[in-house]
């Protein structure tokens, strides 16, 4: 008899859907079916069952051959590496739970590490903009229950956050939004004709990299001031039309993604997008929200915040926390050769960092902790496989609107396998031994 586990939280994207149902075998060891999840979420659960999954730590010798090592050896190597380094980089933290992040931070503090998360290459610019101008925002339920004007700017939820539109933003019928999508106006700003853009009431097909200008033009239009004939490739009338659509809404929400955070102008794009939202609050109610990618990148920023006061790229190497994006950010440190060891958990910089950074990782003592063998593993000296958070291990994660949800364990990990937190606790204990602290 198979059993169904309900209210399961999906550990894939920042949408953090918590209504999944997972059918597991009677002995609780095998996942048979996943219901309610998008294709990516489903695959995340099913992939944990892959037969070729790594279960034993692997270490690279000097010739580049991989050999199995014991967990004790993996713990010792990691602890020694972090203790011997003058300024280790501890990067990732976005695909793990807050408990593991917390254990990692304690290690980082003892070893004088830099702690950075994936915001460094996605919404870090957003975090900087928030430090400049703040952020009027809301929870996703406010969008569902109140919002009648939805803007997707530089993001493509149809592919990246597949259930976002059906759960929260476009289709659901909420308390004050009983007509669902029929009473919502959807605006998409994207240079590409994405699957999200195709669904929009209005697609502003902006010229690549001209977001700042268009946002600025919208602020002008909202105030009723004159505009040139076209801005960023969009005709004046369209901009005025969108401005009027937003002003006439009861509750406006702007969702934005890496199309604006990582294009030209970076954090300045977000500054002005927030300023636009702020302006709209003079006429109606308006909020803005980043489309966070990893399911717990938001949580990493939160835990770093309450423990050290900064949301990413926190440099603890001098015995107190420093924060200086562009200086204490991972790629800047790697490319300048400022770190002498790299620890990666809950992310895959090998696949996403510039090749110049990846080459640096390859030259340094390095550890990759990940359930999967990833491009990062390939350049690290040690690969430590762990249990999947949200599948084989519970723990807290924060949704893109900062709402914390406790993920659920649905199956047992392979025998003898540690969780991220369990591994980090072991490393922490070893670090304390090496450093001689109580």
């Amino acid at each position: 008899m198979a059993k169904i586990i309900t209210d399961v939280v999906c550990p894939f994207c920042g949408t953090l859907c918590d209504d999944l149902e997972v059918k597991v075998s009677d002995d609780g060891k095998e996942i048979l079916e996943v219901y309610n999840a998008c294709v990516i979420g489903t695959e995340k659960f099913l992939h944990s069952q892959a037969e070729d999954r790594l279960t034993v730590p692997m270490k690279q010798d000097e010739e580049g051959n991989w050999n199995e090592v014991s967990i004790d050896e993996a713990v010792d190597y990691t602890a020694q590496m972090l203790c011997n380094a003058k300024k280790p980089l501890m990067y990732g933290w976005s695909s793990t739970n807050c408990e593991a992040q917390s254990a990692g931070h304690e290690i980082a503090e003892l070893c004088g590490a830099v702690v950075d998360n994936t915001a460094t290459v996605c919404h870090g610019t957003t975090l900087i903009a928030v430090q400049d101008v703040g952020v009027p925002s809301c929870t996703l339920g406010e969008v569902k229950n109140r919002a009648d004007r939805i803007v997707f700017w530089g993001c493509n939820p149809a592919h990246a956050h597949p259930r976002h539109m059906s759960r929260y933003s476009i289709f659901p019928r909420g308390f004050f939004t009983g007509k669902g999508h029929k009473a919502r106006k959807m605006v998409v700003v994207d240079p590409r004709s994405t699957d999200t853009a195709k669904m929009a009431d209005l697609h502003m097909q902006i010229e690549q990299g001209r977001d700042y200008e268009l946002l600025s033009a919208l602020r002008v239009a909202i105030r009723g001031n004159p505009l040139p004939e076209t801005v960023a490739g969009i005709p004046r009338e369209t901009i005025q039309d969108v401005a009027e659509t937003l002003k006439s809404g009861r509750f406006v929400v702007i969702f934005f993604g890496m199309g604006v955070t990582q294009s030209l102008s970076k954090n300045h794009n977000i500054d002005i997008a927030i300023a636009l939202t702020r302006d709209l609050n003079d006429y109606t109610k308006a909020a803005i929200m980043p489309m966070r990618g990893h399911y717990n990148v938001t949580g990493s920023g939160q835990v770093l915040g309450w423990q050290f006061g900064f949301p990413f790229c926190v440099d603890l190497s001098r015995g107190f926390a420093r924060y200086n994006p562009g200086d204490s950010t991972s790629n800047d440190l790697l490319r300048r050769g400022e770190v002498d060891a790299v620890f990666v958990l809950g992310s895959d910089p090998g696949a996403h960092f510039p090749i110049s950074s990846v080459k640096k990782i390859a030259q340094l003592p390095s550890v990759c902790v990940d359930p999967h063998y990833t491009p990062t593993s390939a350049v690290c000296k040690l690969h430590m496989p762990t249990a999947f958070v949200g599948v084989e291990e519970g723990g807290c994660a924060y949704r893109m609107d900062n709402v914390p949800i406790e993920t659920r364990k649905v199956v047992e990990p392979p025998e003898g396998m540690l969780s991220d937190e369990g591994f980090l606790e072991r490393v922490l204990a070893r670090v304390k031994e090496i450093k001689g602290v109580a």
Partner: protein
Amino acid sequence: MAEYLIKNGFVFDPVLGINGDKVDIAIKDGKIVQSTEIKNPTVVDAAGKTVMAGGVDIHAHVAGPKVNVGRNYRPEDKLFTYEPGKGVKRMAGGFSVPTVFRTGYKYAQMGYTTVMEAAMPPLYARHTHEEMRDTPILDQGAYPVFGNNWFVLEYLKNHEVENTAAYISWLLRTTRGYAIKIVNPGGTEAWGWGLNCNSIHDPVPYFDITPAQIMKGLMDANEALRLPHSVHIHTNNLGNPGNYETTLDTFKLFQGEKPNNDFGREQVMHHTHVQFHSYGGDSWANVESKADEIMNYVNNNDNMTMDLGCVTLDETTTMTADGPFEHHLTELNHLKWANTDVELETAAGVVPYIYSPNIKVCGIQWAIGLELGLLAKDPMRVFITTDHPNAGPFFRYPRVMKWLMSQDAREAQMDALKWAEKVRSATLLSGLDRELTLYEIAAMTRAGTAKALGLSHMYGSLKPGLEADVAVYDYNPETAEDPELIEKAFGNAAYLFKGGEIVVKEGEVVSNGNKKTLWVDAKVAENPQVQRDIAEKFMRYYTVTQANYEVNEKVFMKNPYRIEVDATQ
């Protein structure tokens, strides 16, 4: 556990009526005991020092989502504040919104052992508990906000107090909350549409109920539930010239009402940070103090308590579930604005603020906070706070004490204001020559707050049987003359015992203690209608499932301490 004897100190304990007498305090197994009960104690020499119970803060914003927004979006708040880890201490920094570690250490250094988080959005309860779990030393609890909750608005619109109480019981248990907090009742729901309720009779959009009905109905539910603390109110119209009338209207709602509980609490409502609610005039040009009218009411009605919300003239970070107020504030000072509307429950805003001694209004606000304290006839009902971090950071409490205890110190500060004469003419402060005593300070920071929280069976006094939370300050009330000594001594406890363990020794934090997280479990008769309403709201309007809403005690709380109440009768 170790036994201690704190000898020869000047003890101040309003519960026991000890006013500066030299009394030895004995500690055994984490509790205060009679001196005769200990055999081989470690003796702590407190000769020439002041001894009080551990401080109990009834209202501060120290954990949770808006606090963390304050931390993360103000890197400038960390400048020059960081201290490296040492011994048992983690590295810690931050000024107006310190990291959780610094919060724990700083309170301990002030001799405080219990701190209540004053506003917890239920949907973010897990976050609030995660921060409290990481905050060392302090016993803590958190007040979930109810004043704009859709369940409450709908039940009270229909005068369903019993259902309201059943819902409150469920929410306190589910979020591991401590008390009923009300912030800008109705106004924060109106903020969902960019609107507000400026008086207690403004109808809430759509819900067809008024703030007065919300506050009164929640009080009825609170008393029906026999909760340890009363409703904890931040009323409408905060921070506006002329708002003292709204405040008095709020007070009068509760006139003649009687408390119902087994915890020794005597008030039916606590009004918080009254300084922000005591303004006369009709614009910032003619704003003036109405502290006398406010305190006249408070002094004559013993069924209420309040805290001050003293402005400390610092650069700080304001944060409140009063969403429309924070928007109003950012329009006023043009500094950065963060806002989060929380589905079905509440909203919150965060805006930095500089209480400059060069600005007339800031001087007036500073004076009003102190006037309220000096005009209080019963210090067991009027408590020292700064509404941390709204009117100033909590570690300025010793400075507030200095101002309350010394007219010279007040006048020196008044003279240092740029618009001293204008502040003098708009306020009463210069005419008040009262200087509070240490006995009164002990009431305003320990005995009174513990009693108002329904925790006098645990904290607030040095009575045998209570938690052994004891602060020893290097302050000799017989010889100390310079008011600066007050600030220095009460910001740097010589010793702090927490639950019978030494946490601060000679000014240094030496232990992270064994903190408790307090929550209230109020049992009510089974209520199928409320259970059905909860299930329906989660299904249709929330974005998390009901099963994923509850805070898991084992995972998210350090040393949970359940206070049980039986309201089934």
